[in-house]
């Protein structure tokens, strides 16, 4: 069972979307190692699911678990902003 369950909403399998997913995966591999699962969700295939997750724009990364649920929008190139946005900085993880 993974400790962190993440969804990445993208708008189609375009070059940009693939690059975003790859960069994010590199970051997560580095910071969370094998403690996470990342599901890439093509918004164009899953409008209903995007509605349920209240997605407003792409790309959006959702931390589904553990709670609280968090979402960040962007290209995720800034490591600190991604981890902070998800509540996954070293400090926040140590506090739990």
């Amino acid at each position: 069972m993974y400790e962190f369950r993440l969804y990445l909403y993208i708008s189609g399998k375009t070059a940009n979307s693939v690059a975003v997913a790859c960069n994010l995966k590199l970051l997560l591999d580095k910071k969370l190692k094998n403690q996470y699962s990342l599901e890439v969700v093509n918004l164009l295939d899953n409008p209903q699911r995007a509605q349920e997750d209240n997605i407003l724009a792409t790309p959006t990364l959702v931390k589904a678990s553990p709670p609280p649920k968090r979402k960040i929008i962007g290209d995720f190139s800034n490591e600190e902003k991604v981890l902070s946005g998800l509540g996954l900085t070293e400090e926040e993880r140590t506090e739990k």
Partner: protein
Amino acid sequence: MSKRILIIDDDEAVRRSFISALEDSKFQVDTAESGEEGLQMKKDAEYNLIFLDLKMPGMNGVETLREIRKTDKEVPVYIFTAFHKEFFDQLRIVEEQGLNFEVIKKPVGSDLIVTLTKLILGQHEETKEASHV
């Protein structure tokens, strides 16, 4: 020189909402009321970010995006649309053609406009600064 944003939407209320949301920002905001007008403005000026309505009379968002990408593969283009299958079916065509775009949900709130714009244009600025080091 301030960064420039182009809003292409036939709905005047939407264009006004973008201008209002970004009036206190450092960005220059231009608007076009059709795909045709937007393309002409894009030819005449360099834009750093484009918001584009999917459903417009005349040249729609998909056709406009296709024309934009013929000359500019890099500029971020956000297409605003309702998140429904019928609209996404149109976007699937450009996805299959490999054209880059992002989507933003309609109606677009001013908070999201400001957040997204600063995020995209701010990040590009940081990237440029970093490359000088």
